[in-house]
């Protein structure tokens, strides 16, 4: 260890600590001068405001902490939906851009250029107000399959009403565990004896049969609750029963996934194009079928290129979901950094919690994607 190497590091650390110390001291003094108290005690106080859409039971008699959880879960919900759809659309469009069909190729290119070059906030407004203008009023809507109702007040879908739901869930968990064992067994068998086992068909069988058995013998019973139209006033209607997905959630998820999908499509295209042509030809020459070529040769190598930039896009999507406040989707920013901040006036506390939360969310996604990236990386032996 050389003093010349350590000294700059120490000095930098000192400066960072001093800067943070200065700002927190300054904030403390300013708050004291203005008679503002600091503390996180408010989190256990009654929130006394309601939220339109929540995954957990919540109303104004719950605490601010509960309101925080409501916002957090809503943020996670729209991010997960967005990530799933963005990935599906992104992969399809990315591969379509490499198609030999001129029409498919150009359509995909136009889609990418169009959606990635318009600011996201505008797209969110566009989808939201387009949805509000285009969707029918509850009394005018045509049911889809008789049970789905898409209206201006939300997408009303049937809900399942369960008996012995726990047994059903256990049966699914049992199915998943047995599938993992089957896969391990099949891999061993292939390595030792060179015989392949039809893992996919066995897995599908297991995941279907075990839950069906739970219905037949486990006393599991599910009935469906279909939304019913309800009159509110002479001209106002809504639906009751079932599950309601607010139009804010639908348009936000739509805008986020269509926007982010363009970037993922480019990642996918780059990844596939990054695998050299020789690999494909060599794989074909040893007698692999086109499916096997894609699954065993191209994709494993392409994924190495695709995953890191796609991780960035997942992070962006999660952070962009905070634009929800503009269209009344009750995410973390709207519920916690919005209403709760206004009602308590505790700006520093709430903003710091919100920042930490987004940081943790992003880091979790990062860690998971890095783990996955490592798992699929070429292991040199």
């Amino acid at each position, binding site marked *: 260890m050389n003093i010349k190497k350590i000294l700059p590091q120490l000095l930098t650390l000192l400066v960072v600590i001093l800067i943070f110390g200065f700002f927190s001291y300054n904030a403390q003094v300013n708050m004291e001068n203005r008679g503002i108290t600091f503390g996180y005690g408010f989190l256990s106080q009654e929130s006394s405001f309601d939220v339109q859409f929540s995954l957990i039971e919540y109303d104004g008699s719950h605490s601010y902490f509960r309101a925080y959880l409501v916002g957090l879960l809503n943020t996670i919900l729209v991010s997960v939906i967005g990530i799933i759809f963005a990935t599906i659309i992104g992969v399809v469009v990315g591969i379509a851009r490499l198609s030999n069909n001129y029409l498919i190729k150009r359509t995909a290119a136009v889609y990418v250029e169009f959606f990635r070059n318009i600011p996201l906030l505008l797209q969110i407004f566009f989808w939201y107000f387009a949805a509000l203008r285009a969707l029918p009023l509850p009394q005018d809507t045509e049911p889809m399959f008789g049970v789905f109702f898409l209206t201006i*007040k939300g997408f009303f879908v049937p809900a399942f009403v369960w008996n012995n739901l726990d047994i059903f869930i256990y049966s699914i968990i049992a199915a998943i565990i047995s599938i993992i064992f089957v896969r391990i067994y099949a891999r061993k068998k292939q390595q030792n004896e060179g015989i392949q086992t039809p893992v996919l068909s066995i897995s599908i069988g297991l995941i279907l049969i075990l839950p069906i058995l739970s219905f037949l013998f486990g006393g599991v019973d599910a009935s469906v609750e279909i939304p019913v139209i309800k009159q509110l006033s*002479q001209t106002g209607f809504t639906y009751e029963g079932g599950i309601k997905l607010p*139009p804010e959630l639908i348009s936000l998820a739509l805008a986020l996934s269509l926007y982010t999908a363009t970037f993922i499509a480019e990642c996918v295209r780059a990844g596939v194009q990054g695998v050299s042509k020789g690999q494909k030809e060599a794989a074909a020459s040893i007698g692999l079928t086109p499916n096997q070529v894609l699954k065993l040769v191209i994709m494993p190598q392409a994924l190495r290129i695709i995953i890191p930039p796609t991780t960035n896009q997942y992070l962006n999507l999660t952070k962009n979901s905070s634009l929800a406040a*503009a269209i*009344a989707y009750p995410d973390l920013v*709207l519920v916690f950094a919005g209403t709760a*901040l*206004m009602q308590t*006036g505790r700006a520093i506390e709430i903003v710091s919690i919100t920042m930490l939360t987004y940081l943790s969310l992003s880091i979790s996604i990062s860690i998971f994607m890095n783990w996955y990236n490592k798992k699929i990386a070429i292991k040199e032996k």
Partner: protein
Amino acid sequence: MFKYLKQLTSLVAMVAVLFTFTTETMAAKKSKTLKNTQKKGFVRCGVSQGLPGFSNADAAGNWTGVDVDVCRAVAAAVLGDANKVKFTPLSAKERFTALTSNEIDILSRNTTWTLSRDADIGLTFVGVNFYDGQGFMVRKNSGYSSVNDFKNGISACTNLGTTTELNMRDFFNSKGISYEPVTFEKADEVVAAYDAGRCDTYTTDKSGLAAQRIKLSSPDDHIVLPETISKEPLGPVVRQGDSVWEDIVRWSLNVMIEAEEYGVNSANADSMKTSDNPAVKRLVGAEGELGAALGLDNDWSLRIIKQVGNYGESYKRNIADTGILPDRGPNELWTKGGILYVPPAR
């Protein structure tokens, strides 16, 4: 002799300097905000992002409204010119942080005076310039004629981060009605969503409903229900801890209301100096030393009345003549059946 002249001049200079310091008044010394305002040459005022009648900017960027007039009155009193105001449009969410972090010196933005706001977050409310209450707007063809017609499952659009959200919950809870709150950050989106049919009702302060109704695609198809579900005393706010500045803003507002009470307006203010009524004479600075107590000259109130007008003029110009709320209701003087009552300026 010349030897002493030099010393004498420096002595005179010193006395002069001392004297100017003392005439800068004790008040100015005590009030950082007043001193900074005089140094900058304008009053920093936080207003709404556009609420007709209260604070609204025209195409040329000129702000008008009863909330705007409070800031103009302070500018007239402190700086001698009602136009020396810098307006900062703020969302409901930003407003208190802007004030406590010293971005603005007066928050005059249709803000409801409540205990927790006054006591908990470093703010001080100085008075009420508009008595309001929360109401509901519905479509005429809905057949609703009272809030008692509301049914379970009704959806209500409103603004984020206001007392409205809390009142709405109290109201629906007390009636035992389940409802869906749809809260937007900006008023324009609330109006657009309600207009499109996303919500069955739009709820906010009644003055706000009256003002926003103009923005709907067909204003005549909507009505405001008669019930008022809350008290919303709206008034200007200052930072806690500068009592001189607090007094200046409070009395600038009070002078406007008292001027109306005594019939002093922008047109007759000068001639009122020779009035027989000592209360009127005090208002126009012809008697007493009221300005000195605030660290101002004695014409401060005369300038407010001449440049901004009395409360009645401000109300008529901004709210009545624009068709928002022609009837003054509770915002009439106590002598004429309203509840506008301010302590005497003496």
